[in-house]
């Protein structure tokens, strides 16, 4: 069965979602709601034959009372206003903003734990890229400390990212602990201004109390394959290094180039993860 979905927010993320949702057979895109009638996102939605509402989210929800799921790609502040409007209408929300009102979800790690949550939050791009690795390593031994460094192209970091740098490092570090299973976590983000822009690169360091080296390496490869199933540009940049009780993993993320340029893997992994969550909701309804 297909789910009727809509996108809130007509910026970069919302517009990239437009393409990913429109081609997903499990999802029926109804339209996009924004606040800027002149935005390129709304123009593209209109051109694709979808509803494009510029009169605010409440109006859009009233005009389209049959929605199952919305993706919120607006802002943390706006999401806090949208959440009660959605809850009162029984519309489920996949939140891509840093609002973190609902439980944190990284599809490869804990998607099935929150299939009934009215609102789930996708944490950060850094968490989406690194938590699956830390969780896989936690299954191979006891991770005492996990540290990740996410490097993204300066041009892929808009004003939202820049004004939420602390939220990024704090939320990502927390997710290494709560979802990744590490006893302690630390996250660092670097905006790289190189031209041409670089794709997203992540270094994951994990220090172990106890470690099965062979198990660690194979569990990382398996996690990368699972994430790549829903984020096609996700891959190991080099083989994991295992030395002195520490494993270092390098993963990179190239975007699909739907709306955002291919270097913006950091944004693509968010929209891809969001679509994977919605797809899982649809799979579940189909098996009921």
């Amino acid at each position, binding site marked *: 069965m297909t789910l009727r979905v809509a996108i809130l927010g007509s910026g970069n993320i919302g517009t990239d979602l437009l393409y990913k949702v429109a081609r997903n057979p499990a999802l029926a895109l109804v339209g996009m709601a924004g606040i800027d009638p002149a935005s390129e996102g709304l123009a593209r939605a209109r051109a694709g034959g979808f509803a494009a509402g510029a009169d605010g989210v409440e109006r859009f929800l009233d005009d389209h009372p049959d929605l199952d799921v919305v993706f919120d790609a607006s802002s943390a502040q706006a999401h806090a206003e949208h959440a009660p409007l959605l809850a009162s209408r029984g519309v489920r929300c996949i939140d891509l903003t840093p609002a973190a009102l609902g439980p944190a979800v990284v599809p490869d790690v804990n998607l099935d734990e929150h299939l009934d949550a009215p609102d789930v939050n996708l944490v950060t791009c850094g968490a989406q890229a690194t938590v699956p690795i830390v969780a896989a390593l936690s299954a191979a031994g006891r991770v005492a400390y996990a*540290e990740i*460094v996410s490097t993204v192209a300066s041009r892929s970091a808009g004003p939202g990212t820049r004004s939420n*740098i*602390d939220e*990024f*490092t*704090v939320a990502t570090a927390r997710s290494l602990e709560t979802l990744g299973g590490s006893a302690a976590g*630390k996250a*660092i*983000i*670097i*905006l790289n201004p190189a031209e041409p822009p670089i794709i997203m690169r992540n*270094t994951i*360091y994990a*220090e172990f109390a106890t470690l099965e080296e062979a198990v660690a390496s194979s569990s990382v490869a398996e996690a990368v394959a699972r994430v790549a199933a829903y984020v096609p540009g996700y891959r190991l940049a080099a083989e994991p290094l295992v030395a002195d009780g*520490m494993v270092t993993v390098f993963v990179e993320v190239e975007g699909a180039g739907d709306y955002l340029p291919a270097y913006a893997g950091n944004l693509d992994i968010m929209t891809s993860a969001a679509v994977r969550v919605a797809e899982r909701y649809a799979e579940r309804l189909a098996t009921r």
Partner: protein
Amino acid sequence: MNETATAPRVRLLDSTLRDGSHAIRHRYTPEQVELVAGRLDEAGVPAIGVGHGDGLGAASIQYMRSLHTDDELLSAARRALRSARLAVTFQPGIGTKRQLERAA
């Protein structure tokens, strides 16, 4: 301010206890910081930078761990300073605003 137009005023910020920590793999002890900061203060240096070489919160695998925390090193410097001002380095994405406020 007019005199700056003719003779630019140079203001020193000594970074021995911050940038200098790279050279010793961030192994400064609070005792060393207190001693050096105190002598720099006596010498009339107006601002003294202290902490991990890459700034607040940088102690990590990526940037190398410190023997002592930023808090310990900054406290040691504060004990020694009379007239000089304490300076820190801060890079968004590494340190957080909370760490900056703690240092203030």
